[in-house]
C-alpha cells in the first residue's frame, strides 16, 4: 500500500470529522493493522493532530496498531460463555499457541483474541475462527479448531471462503440468451428479464453470480409480492408450476446456456429462494 492509495482513501471519505473512522477502517482492511507512518500521513492530510487520531485508533477495539496474523481466532468471554468455562478455553488456546490473548504467533499465522459477547449466548462457549462459529466448545476441541484454522479451512480474510459460481442462462422457450454483458452486477454480466405486476411491466436484473440475488428492477415493486418474470425476447412466462421451498411462491425457471440443467428463482420480492438443477435438460 503506497502513499497514493492512502490519499485516495482520504479523498474518498472526506477530510471532515466524520470521515476519520471510515478512513481508518479502510486502511485497516488494506494493511490488516494501522501502521504508524500511515497514521502520521492521515494526520497530516486531514489536518488533525496525531494525538486525536491515535486516540480514536486506540479507543475502538476494531482497530489494531500491531500487525495481525493470517488467521484470527476469537474466544467469547461474555457472561454466558464465561460461566460455562470460556476462561479455560482461552487458557487452552494460549497454551497451545504459546501466546496471550491479543497476541500473534511468532510465525504470523494466528492471532488470538477475546471478545466480550458475540450475541449467541445460548450456544456458548463460542469460538470464532476466521468468521466460522464454533458452538459449545470444550477444551478438547481446541486442538481441532486450531488445526482446521491453520489449514485455512475457514478462509483467511475473516469471511467464509466464497467460490464464485457464474451461471449463464437462456430462455427455455425461444432459447435466446438472457445474459446482458452491457450491465454488470458484482462485476459479472447480469441476467436481464421482463418483470411485471399489476399491469406494470419493466426490466429486472439478476446477478449471474450464483447465491447473490440482489435484484434490481425498473419499477419499484413492494416487498413480499409475487411478480411475473418472462422472457424479454419471446415474452413467454418463466413460471412453470414449481414452487419455492422457502415460501411456496411460484418459481421462475430458466435454462442454463449449456443446456445441461435449469436455474430456478423465486418470484416473490424479498425472498431469496433459488435452486440450480444440473443435468436436467428438459423442463
Amino acid at each position, binding site marked *: 500500500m503506497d502513499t497514493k492509495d492512502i490519499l485516495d482513501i482520504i479523498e474518498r471519505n472526506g477530510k471532515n470529522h466524520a470521515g476519520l473512522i471510515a478512513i481508518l477502517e479502510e486502511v485497516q482492511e488494506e494493511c490488516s493493522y494501522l501502521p*504508524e507512518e500511515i*497514521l502520521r500521513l492521515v494526520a497530516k492530510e486531514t489536518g*488533525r*493532530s*496525531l*494525538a*486525536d*487520531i*491515535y*486516540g480514536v485508533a*486506540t*479507543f475502538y477495539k476494531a482497530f489494531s496498531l500491531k500487525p495481525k496474523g493470517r488467521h484470527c481466532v476469537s474466544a467469547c468471554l461474555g457472561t454466558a460463555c464465561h460461566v460455562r468455562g470460556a476462561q479455560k478455553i482461552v487458557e487452552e488456546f494460549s497454551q497451545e499457541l504459546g501466546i496471550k490473548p491479543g497476541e500473534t504467533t511468532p510465525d504470523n499465522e494466528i492471532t488470538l483474541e477475546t471478545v466480550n459477547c458475540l450475541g449467541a449466548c445460548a450456544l456458548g462457549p463460542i469460538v470464532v475462527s476466521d468468521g466460522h462459529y464454533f458452538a459449545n466448545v470444550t477444551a478438547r476441541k481446541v486442538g481441532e479448531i486450531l488445526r482446521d484454522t491453520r489449514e485455512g479451512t475457514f478462509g483467511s480474510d475473516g469471511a467464509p471462503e466464497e467460490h464464485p459460481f457464474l451461471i449463464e442462462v437462456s430462455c427455455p422457450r425461444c432459447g435466446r440468451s438472457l445474459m446482458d454483458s452491457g450491465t454488470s452486477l458484482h462485476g459479472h454480466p447480469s441476467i436481464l428479464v421482463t418483470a411485471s405486476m399489476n399491469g406494470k411491466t419493466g426490466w429486472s436484473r439478476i446477478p449471474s453470480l450464483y447465491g447473490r440475488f440482489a435484484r434490481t428492477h425498473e419499477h419499484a415493486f413492494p416487498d413480499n409480492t409475487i411478480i411475473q418474470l418472462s422472457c424479454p425476447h419471446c415474452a413467454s412466462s418463466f413460471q412453470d408450476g414449481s414452487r419455492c421451498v422457502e415460501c411456496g411462491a411460484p418459481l421462475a425457471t430458466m435454462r442454463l446456456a449449456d443446456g445441461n440443467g435449469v436455474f430456478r428463482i423465486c418470484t416473490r420480492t424479498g425472498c431469496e429462494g433459488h435452486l440450480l438443477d444440473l443435468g436436467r435438460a428438459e423442463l
Partner: protein
Amino acid sequence: MINLTINGLAVSVEKGSTVLEAAQFLGFPIPTLCHHEGLTPYGACRLCVVEIGEGPGARLVSSCTYPAEEGLKVRTASERVVRARKMIIELLLASCPQSKVIQDLASAHGVRTQRFRQEYEDCILCGLCVRMCSEQMMAGAIGFRGRGTERSIGTPFDVQSDVCRFCGGCMHICPACQLRCTYNQPEKAICNACANLAPPCIEKEQYGDMMCYMNPCVACEIK
C-alpha cells in the same frame, strides 16, 4: 437575557452561558477541577454537580456543561448535591491521594474519611492538559489513549511528540501533577516540559536535563 433561579434567587444571565458561569458570576461557589476559563467545557470531574428542577423530577447535572435555560431552578448546595460532591471528592482522593489540589478540596468539603483503596494514580483524566495543548497552545501534542481502565493521557506511540514546544502548559494546568515529574527518567516524561523551566535541582547530576515544575520541587525532594 435568560431568567433563571439559583438557590431561590431570581437572576438573569446572558444567553449561551452555562449554569456554572451564571452561578460563579453571582458569587455562588461551585468547586470544579476540569473547568477552566478559556478552555471548552468537558464535564469530566463531575465536581460541579448541581440539582435542577423540583420535586421528584429534580436531577443532578454537571453545571459546567449545562446551558442556562429560561425558568430553570438550580440549587448549588442542596443536601443531595453536597452528598454527591463529597462522594466524588472521596473517589478522586482515592485515585490521587498525593495531589495537593484534591487534598485541599477534601479538606474544604469536610471529607475526613477515606473508604476506598488508594491507587496513587498520577492522573484523574480531567482532560485539562489535552485541551490546554490543543486549544490554547495550538499544538495537539498529547491526547487521550485507549479506553476504560486502560485510558491514559500521553503522546501518540509513547514517543516524544514532534509538535510539542515544551511550553509546560500541561503541567501548569494539571490538578494532579505533582508526581508527573519523572526526574531521572526523562524518556518517561509526558513532553519534557520541565526541561524548559528554570531548574532548581540542576546541580544534581542525574537531574542534569530535568527539573520538576514545582519550586521547590515536592516530588523529587531536592531542596
